[in-house]
């Protein structure tokens, strides 16, 4: 373990290299059909779920609040992006219009997140759960009642624009940005809110501002994930984004571990793959999966990674802060 740790601390250049190679690989897979389309599809779902899990972890894990409306923001992103690619943007420029649509999906979800965050963070604790729960229901019934976007029948006509390389890029980008936020003054503010909100406020942290920021960033990436999801399914209905979907994301967060990006990646991957692997079990997998969760909560209540982080995800400045300060002191003495 020590050897792995030093490898990760000393050889930081490895991380971008590995990511670059994986990206090239994902392009190759798509171009030359290196993997079974079914396996590719699962990998795409893994990526989307990593984005969802990491972004929800920011609010539920790092900040210690309890949001249960993540699928609602996903729906906003999914419908926004789909409307853009199908109705607004010219279809012959799919290569360019798709990223624009995804970003717009994220932005609209972020704006909706801002609207939800302002009133709900005036109160504390459980209220956020109630507000986000009702938010999820509102989104669903609003979409169901707008006939122009298909109402309860759903919306279709999207091309299958979500490919493995795109999902890879968006997943890396999401995890990177969330990690950047976590290792900044705002991220430390988020952690201090989880630890002791009153003390945090008294140490000069503008807790209102920090909460809203974390929530908006979280909604943005939920919207991005929704946009990607819509363009792989090519058919979305309001029912796809109900409380069950939100619960799925919650499960992945707590399975992987709160307050850990490595945990979110592991949680999303394990859950998604396991559900597929267990498909032959039929209905029984719906018995098996909750059982796994119950056991996990009993023996590892903080999840697989539980507040621990993989050294590669921690900026080198933070990882070596104390050590390099001591070395500098020693040198000047």
């Amino acid at each position: 373990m020590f050897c792995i740790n030093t490898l990760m601390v000393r050889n930081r250049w490895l991380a971008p290299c590995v990511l670059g190679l994986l990206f090239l690989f994902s392009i190759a897979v798509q171009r030359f059909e290196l993997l079974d389309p079914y396996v590719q599809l699962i990998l795409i779902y893994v990526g989307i779920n990593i984005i969802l899990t990491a972004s929800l972890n920011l609010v539920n894990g790092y900040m210690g609040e309890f949001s249960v409306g993540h699928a609602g923001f996903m729906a906003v992103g999914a419908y926004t992006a789909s409307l853009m690619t199908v109705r607004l943007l010219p279809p012959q420029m799919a290569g360019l219009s798709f990223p624009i649509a995804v970003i717009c999906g994220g932005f609209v979800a972020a704006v909706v997140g801002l609207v939800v965050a302002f009133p709900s963070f005036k109160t504390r604790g459980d209220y956020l759960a109630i507000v986000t729960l009702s938010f999820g229901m509102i989104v669903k019934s609003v979409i169901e009642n707008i006939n122009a976007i298909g109402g309860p029948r759903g919306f279709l006509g999207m091309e299958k624009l979500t490919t493995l390389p795109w999902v890879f890029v968006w997943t890396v980008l999401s995890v990177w940005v969330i990690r950047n936020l976590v290792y900044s003054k705002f991220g430390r503010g988020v952690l201090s809110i989880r630890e002791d909100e009153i003390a945090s406020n008294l140490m000069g942290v503008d807790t209102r501002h920090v909460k809203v920021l974390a929530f908006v960033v979280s909604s943005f990436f939920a919207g991005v994930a929704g946009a990607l999801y819509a363009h792989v399914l090519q058919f979305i209905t309001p029912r796809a984004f109900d409380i069950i979907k939100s619960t799925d994301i919650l499960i992945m967060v707590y399975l992987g571990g709160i307050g850990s990006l490595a945990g979110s990646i592991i949680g999303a991957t394990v859950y998604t793959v396991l559900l597929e692997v267990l498909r032959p079990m039929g209905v029984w997998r719906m018995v098996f999966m909750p059982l796994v969760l119950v056991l996990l909560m009993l023996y590892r209540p903080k999840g697989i990674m539980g507040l621990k982080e993989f050294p590669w995800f921690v900026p080198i400045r933070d990882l070596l802060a104390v050590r390099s300060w001591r070395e500098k002191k020693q040198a000047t003495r």
Partner: protein
Amino acid sequence: MSILAIQGLTHKFGGLTAVSDLNLTLNAHELVGVIGPNGAGKTTVFNIISGVYRPSRGSILLEGVELVGKSPSQITNLGIARTFQNIRLFRELSVLDNVRIAHYGQVRYNALEALFHVGRFKKEEARIIEHSMELLALLRIDAAADVQAKNLPYGLQRRVEIARALATRPRLLLLDEPAAGMNPNEIDQLMDLIHWIRDEFNLTTLLIEHQMALVMSICERLLVLDFGETIAEGRPEEIQSDQRVLEAYLGDTVT
């Protein structure tokens, strides 16, 4: 020159008057103690000054700036820092992170720079780490910088709390029973520390304390509260022989 001026401060919890008509002026660089029996309203006064409670009546001026109505974080960033009676560190976080969090108001970069780690971000982060470590070194707890706060012994946790309060660059430091739960040896060290940080950081200090030995020896002036009322104010030796103070602490004397 007065740094803090409290006038007519009254706070009621429902029908209970926790603080009644408190007046207090702190001069720059003074070390003033607030004493009184349990439930006298000492911590309530701290909570009002630091903005946790909004007083029913009265005004608090910090160098002429009205504090009543401001949020705790605004008040902290104006220059008032505090510690807590029952230690409130961020327990799961490292000592360094505890101190870094308290730099929040001094870090100059915006959310976008933070999301992409660009612009002023790198320079500011390096500065905050440097400043935090220097502060920990000054308080001789730099060896524990990597340790989770909850794993430190009690006396050191108190020190970290003081370091964290100092990280907000206060002009006025509020210490809420810093000696609670300490043995006589630790209390001696603490007295030296309080004196030393006051001179080192050029602070005005307001101290709540139960340990009579501590307040009597280091405070220049004392304020005695009982049931929210100010029953005495003056130099420690005056307070020691004050009849009302003795009554408040020991009950009625038979004459």
